[in-house]
């Protein structure tokens, strides 16, 4: 197993978050042999851009999650969403099932397709730094 330091920038994270990133790193390598490292800047771009292909009322992750990871968001059914930043919501990304559930639903809404493992990893390392 490749050391995590080679696939993610140095940062402190919990055991569950680490194993989640390892899993995505493994998948990313399978999807594309050129994969080297998760990049938080790529993740930020992905998180804040407007994407086509998904539902017209959710063109970006920020549509529901708020403009920045430290702001709280709102679902389209008017339920508040706690900030994605672990500095505000320490429990973020601690439950791998929950992470997978919401990547599954939200990538479908925003992009109209499943996210690649690289995209997931990029977004995670971006949000884990907030």
């Amino acid at each position, binding site marked *: 197993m490749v050391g995590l330091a080679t696939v993610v920038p140095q940062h402190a994270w919990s055991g569950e978050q680490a194993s989640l990133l390892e899993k995505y790193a493994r998948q990313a390598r399978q999807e594309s042999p050129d994969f080297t490292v998760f990049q938080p800047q790529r993740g930020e771009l992905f998180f804040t851009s407007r994407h086509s292909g998904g539902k017209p009322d959710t063109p970006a992750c920020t549509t529901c999650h708020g403009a920045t990871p430290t702001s709280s968001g709102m*679902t*389209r*059914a*008017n*339920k508040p969403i706690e900030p994605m930043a672990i500095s505000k919501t320490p429990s973020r990304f601690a439950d791998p099932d929950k992470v997978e559930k919401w990547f599954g*639903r939200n990538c479908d*809404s925003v992009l109209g397709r499943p996210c690649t493992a690289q995209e997931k990893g990029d977004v995670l390392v971006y949000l884990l730094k907030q």
Partner: protein
Amino acid sequence: MLIWDKGTRIFHWMLVLLVVGDALTGWMAPKWMLNWHVAFGAGIGMLLIWRIVWGVYGPGPSRFENFIRSPAAVLGHLRSVASGHPRWHAGHNPAGGWMIVALLITLTLILITGLIALAGEEKQGILAGWISYGVGHLCKEIHEGLVTLLFVLIPTHIAGVILESLLERENLIRSMITGKKRLTAIQTLPELQQAKPVHALIWNSGIALLLWVGYLGLGEHPAPLGHAPWSASAAGYAKACGECHWSFHPSLLPESSWQTMISTLDNHFGENASLSEDVRRQMDDLLRTNAAHAWDTKAANQLRRVSKEEPMRITAAPYWLKKHRHIPADSYASKSIGSKSNCPACHQDAESGHFTPQAIRNPKEKIA
């Protein structure tokens, strides 16, 4: 001479105030002022108990035995009124006496049906949990019918007082304030028994004690809503189904609607809300067991009837449409509400499924 003692006078005018208060809070005030309506009713209840005891132990003119007369006496009095020369009575005349009885009985029945309706419909008050929605709903209808009767009796009473005042040339309304009436005919003054305030006090205290014991004995029903208290998070429901929208209370849909919904989660109101099979089966079981049939609230009873075209949509149900018909459709789009399905925005007790009138707060419209 002094005819109406202070107690009777204070009783009369306090009753007027409280009845007006109840009428206003019952018909015109916003629904969340229900507590005032109940409080005024409780006040009327206390006044009625006092008056009934005083009707036995009060001074002569206030005693029931002196003004409740036979039908013949009432007819005789009415005939004398019709002739323009009413027979003079120191206290209440026979017709007035019957009006008082009618008012006291009607008010008592209004109170009792009100208490039962409060318990059955709103699951509130001392009888909450002991009365079914069906019985409460019936009592509410009777309550409203009796109030209509009261609204006939009161003007009749006022008209009678005014008519008698004109014919006797005595301001009877002022008499009920000052207590005094002109002494016209000495021979019709039988009603001069002395009051027995100690007897009255003992009886009032005894009744109060009985009511208190009864109140303690009834206690707080463990399941006033007809179901054990509900926790969306304890049931795993909040996690599985309450992350996109509020955890819709299971009593708001019948079992058949929940069943259809949980078996078609891939197209859940236009969203893919699929769950893992074991969680899905868990939610299916949970929601079907705790559906509308399992609760006895007003919402649960009424929302068992769903829209034919959209059986899974609570806001399309006939009862929902009826209750929200006066709310402008565009007010749901305000920033603080968002949509019709966001019940907790206005119903502060939505999570419990209780939906009491007092918990309704329409948030002020904010410009989005």
